[in-house]
């Protein structure tokens, strides 16, 4: 009898705990929907707590799988070797060209006394995990706010832009790749100088949107960040234009996503912003005032608006 009593009491407690947990989790989901930044911070804290601890268990599995895929690539080692030789020859040609250009450049700079923009500082991190979800493209880095990483900073590998930081904890931070659907980067197409937006869509070739003259964007043209919006520093290489079979304009990312291991997070020093238009032409014209009324200056209506070509 006594055991039956404690059994039913235990069951009641259990039912309460189950209900409470379900309620808390559901509330967490609602809260995530309403106040996303706070819950995302909670998520980053949770990740910061667990993922680095799991790394010792992950490392052997990762290494093992990599060895297998490396072995597969040994099978094609001969073709790879030939390819690399050809590439090396072409690169030597380019190296010569680059050296000559560098010398010319240095001479011209010396002539011009150019002010270079403040150089970018950077911190290098290792990508420790994948996003693990087919719906978002991101990775977790082993550097965090203690290393000076901030939200919105750009990350590059040796070749090109990889993505931006979104979510920082003490020791880890999340890097959202350019291929993620939430990634939209203002860009310039070189050499035409057209502006565009590079919009990720879960592929390695994000779309290029909002181009003025799509016919002028030819395959092979380079796409670099424009620096508009102040999130990314300008002139980081994104990739080159390709055309999809449907005629869409896309950009083939320059960063090597297949062998991504270390990334550089750029710490752009904040640049001075130019606000307003200087006070050379008299008092500032308030925008709220209707056009037919003389604008107020120090509470007194002005006699006539200062216009160019006004004759008196």
């Amino acid at each position, binding site marked *: 009898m006594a055991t039956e009593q404690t059994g039913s009491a235990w069951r009641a407690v259990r039912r309460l705990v189950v209900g409470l*947990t379900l309620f808390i989790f559901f509330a967490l989901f609602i809260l*995530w*929907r309403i106040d996303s930044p706070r819950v995302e911070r909670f998520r980053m804290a*949770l990740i910061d707590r667990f993922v680095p601890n799991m790394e010792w*268990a992950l490392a052997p*599995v990762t290494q093992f799988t990599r060895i297998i895929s490396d072995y597969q690539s040994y099978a094609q080692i001969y073709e790879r070797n030939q390819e690399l030789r050809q590439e090396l020859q072409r690169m030597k040609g380019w190296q010569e060209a680059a050296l000559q250009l560098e010398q010319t450049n240095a001479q011209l700079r010396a002539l011009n006394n150019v002010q270079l923009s403040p150089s970018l500082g950077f911190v290098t991190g290792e990508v420790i995990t994948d*996003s693990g979800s087919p719906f*978002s493209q991101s*990775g977790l880095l082993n550097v965090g706010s203690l290393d000076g990483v901030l939200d919105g900073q750009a990350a590059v590998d040796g070749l090109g832009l990889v993505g931006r930081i979104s979510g920082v904890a003490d020791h880890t931070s999340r890097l959202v790749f350019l291929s993620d659907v939430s990634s939209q980067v203002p860009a310039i197409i070189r050499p035409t100088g057209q502006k565009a937006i590079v919009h990720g869509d879960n592929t390695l070739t994000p779309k290029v949107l909002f181009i003025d003259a799509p016919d002028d964007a030819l395959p092979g043209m380079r796409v670099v960040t424009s620096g508009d919006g102040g999130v990314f520093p300008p002139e980081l290489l994104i990739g080159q234009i390709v055309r999809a079979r449907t005629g869409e304009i896309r950009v083939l990312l320059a960063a090597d996503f*297949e062998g991504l291991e270390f990334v550089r997070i750029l710490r752009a020093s904040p640049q001075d912003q130019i606000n307003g238009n200087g006070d050379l032409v008299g008092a500032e014209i308030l925008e709220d005032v209707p056009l037919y009324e003389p604008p107020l200056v120090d509470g007194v209506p002005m006699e006539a608006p200062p216009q160019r070509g006004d004759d008196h």
Partner: protein
Amino acid sequence: MNIAPKIWLYRALYLLLGLLAIAYPILPLQFTPARWPAPELLFALTMAWVVRQPESAPFLLIAGLALIADAVLMRPIGLWAVLLLMASETVRFSYRSIQDRGLMMEFSVVAALLVVMVILQNLLLVISFSQSLEVGRMLQFALLTMLCYPVMVVFLHYIVRVRKPDNTNRPDRLGKIR
């Protein structure tokens, strides 16, 4: 007294395997967008385990694992966890009758639960104006997860030795011993 340490052993084992199931899709192997979504191993593990030994996969342990999985895998936090907990409680409620009716029955119950979970997840995402998921992708996901389930069952049965209690000496519902 002989049973108690064994139960704790199995709980620890469940925790370890659960953590591995969460860690598996985030291994830094490829950063290119995958063509197939990763199957939800935590779901397969939990369901197969609860059908066999519900007492060694306690509710709070599943809750903790589900929450970590949601956080680490960048899903809407708490959503899949709630669904997984509800499904596991459903199975726990009727684990005995599922055990008695054989593997096909178990497989179809779990498949039905998964489909309901996926539909509910999408419904809640749509209701809350979140970014909902493509139907094709969700079908792939459900299919892959269900393909993983038998593998998980075999793994649990032969390697981890999580088995249903021996049926021969247990009285059935009428009290007869078979």
